[in-house]
């Protein structure tokens, strides 16, 4: 099962970045670094929302407690 950051995590990180930029005394270098990271994450978050077809999978219990998924046609 994949472990890439979820939409929620993207938003949470973005929120933290914006707050840091808004509130704290950062070096300009740091601020620009954060800003660039924020722009990247915004892009990722927007991309996540672009999906038009819901992905549906069936969860299968594998050997020794492992978990795998299979496509599921409804």
């Amino acid at each position, binding site marked *: 099962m994949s472990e890439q950051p979820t939409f929620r995590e993207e938003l949470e990180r973005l929120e933290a970045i914006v707050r840091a930029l808004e509130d704290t005394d950062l070096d300009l270098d740091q601020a620009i670094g954060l800003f660039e990271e924020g722009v990247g994450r915004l892009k990722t978050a927007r991309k996540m*929302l672009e999906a038009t077809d819901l992905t549906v999978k069936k969860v299968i219990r594998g050997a020794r407690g492992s978990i795998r998924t299979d496509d599921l046609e409804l």
Partner: protein
Amino acid sequence: MSPELDLFGPSSTDTSSGALTVSAVTGRAKQLVEAGFRVLWVKGEVASFKAYRSGHWYFTLRDELAQVRCVMWRDNARRLPAQPVEGIQVFVECRPTLWEERGEFRLTVRRMIATEADGLWELQLQRARDALERDGLLDPARRRNLPRFPMRIAVVTSTDGAALRDIASVLGRRWPAAELLVVPAQVQGDKAEQQLCSALELADRIPGVDVIIVGRGGGSREDLWAFNAEAVARTVADMRTPTVSAVGHETDIALTDLVADLRAPTPSAAAETVAPSRKDALHAVDHLARRLAHSLANRTIVGRERLERTGDRLLAAVQGQIERRERRLGELAGRLHALSPLRVLQRGYAVARNDQGQVLKTVRQFATGQRFRLTVQDGDITAVTERGGST
């Protein structure tokens, strides 16, 4: 021989003495009883109830005047949610028979319902509910908020039920960015309870799952009953992932509804509740984008302001220095002035000097006819000595 016995036909000649064996008479009686009654509904009060380890139930059904022994075989008994308590009034669907080993007339019960609507089910539900309550699992404070933007949603339900299709259709419309993971479980029948528990546990272990929906579509009370099983309710209560219970139609309330983080009236409603609209999500992203842009813009404004403030301070510092120096200069000038020997002239004294600027201090220095300069407070005059001095 009475004419009634003729009803038994050839059995009357089973033994040489013309007497019937016990098995013969009970066998015939059994046949007679079973042939004489169809399936019946009988109403009575339960007494002397005993459930054997084999799963079979034995009890007596009685009213004010009579009683009859009953048996309910395991396959029928286990369809019931709970054992009846002593004294409960029930209806039983049964076939009268005769148990030959004891020569006992009895009813083979296939179904039992309490005379009060759904009495037995209520009884089980009440017991399970009390147990959950005792353990504090019904406390509303245990309920957690659902995540606002779940990207990975697990559903514990049957793969061929209407619930799954309903949920997928709502999510596909409102929140297609999500991934729907189906953890299959039978939702009715003998295996439902155990399968629901293990599917829930599996769903709870899937990495990154934001929220879990457990439920099924509408059905009869019996169909929905697995969701009233204490074990299933306890599993729902133990979930690490926020869980929504969605069982049956609006009016059905299951035990899982009471322990879940949220009860949805139907599976579709659960999906509606769990999924934000894509519009809301885009809105949230746009909002953050604006804040991000502003934060940097503000930061440059703040920087410029700070720079200006620094410049101002620098200027102020320089100016202060100049002013301080000017003041010092004034002071020095003042002191210089005070020390000047000419200052004494202000008090009306005058100083005489010859052309060479030598101060003439004594009479002897003045010769008759000698010119000299006399300096007073506001300037010099030239004078001539009329009569020189002598001592």
